[in-house]
């Protein structure tokens, strides 16, 4: 057997080798992306927590209403979008194309509602004089820097997720993409929800006026 034939043989063997984790490569790739993103969010949230706990005169600009109520609505919307995403993945796995597309559409709408509520919150803070480097209440200016950068990074993930879901829905509808793509995108969407489970208590609830 020539060397080129041996290489070809090894290549086929590699292609037929079962996945060590028993999942599709696209799903494993998404998991690897998620753990790297988790480290990014983990680092900035730890940094913020050190700063928040170590600064006695840290500003607490949020009132229960409207800020926390708005945050609770945003949490409800994002958690519900995870549920609709699960329904979309389940329908895709069962080959129920129409149901999958309807659940994907519901997830996209909920993602857009979340982003809209988030931006509305931001514009209220801007109107009150907050920015990356300004604190209208006096005292440490880092509140604006940490709040807008962390929530901004999360918002960017939500907007990216909505765009990805639109692409996946179109691709799945035209049979260019399969249920594996829907499932991998679902993983990303649940991760965005998971990050919010830390962002909401640490950035909203920790900064309620007491």
């Amino acid at each position: 057997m020539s060397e080129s034939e041996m290489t070809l043989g090894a290549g086929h063997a590699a292609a037929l080798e079962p996945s060590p984790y028993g999942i599709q490569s696209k799903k494993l790739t998404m998991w690897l992306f998620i753990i790297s993103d988790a480290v990014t969010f983990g680092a900035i949230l730890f940094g913020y927590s050190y700063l928040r706990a170590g600064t006695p005169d840290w500003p607490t600009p949020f009132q229960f209403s409207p800020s926390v109520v708005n945050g609770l609505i945003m949490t409800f919307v994002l958690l519900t979008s995870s549920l609709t995403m699960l329904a979309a993945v389940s329908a895709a796995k069962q080959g129920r194309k129409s149901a999958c597309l309807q659940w994907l559409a519901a997830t996209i709408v909920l993602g857009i509602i979340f982003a809209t509520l988030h931006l509305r919150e931001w514009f209220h803070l801007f109107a009150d004089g907050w920015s990356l480097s300004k604190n209208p209440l006096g005292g440490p200016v880092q509140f604006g820097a940490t709040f807008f950068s962390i929530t901004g990074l999360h918002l960017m993930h939500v907007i990216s997720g909505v765009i990805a879901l639109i692409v996946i829905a179109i691709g799945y509808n035209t049979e260019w993409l399969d249920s594996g793509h829907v499932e991998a995108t679902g993983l990303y969407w649940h991760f965005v929800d998971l990050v919010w489970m830390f962002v909401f208590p640490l950035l909203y609830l920790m900064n309620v006026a007491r």
Partner: protein
Amino acid sequence: MTGTNHEPGMKEYIAIWVGLLCIVGIETFLTTLHLSTHKLLLALLLLAFAEAGIALLYFMHLKYEKPKLFWTLVPAVIFVLFMMNHIWPDAYRMLNMRVPIQ
């Protein structure tokens, strides 16, 4: 982490979703108790980790994948975050960046 493909149905997912909403309710309630900053931060972090664990295992199906996927991903993330935030010197830089009280 059973490693089987027996995934929960929508009824179980809805129960988990309600459970997660309850944890958010507890977090909000704790905010009204006027706890010290450190106690509130600790309580909220513990509840957030519980929520994240539930989401990871059930919503992201990690419980139903092969156990070696869990053992590859989760300890690696915990190790990196622990080293980065508690061992390496940069972890303490934020404490020194705080604005001194006037």
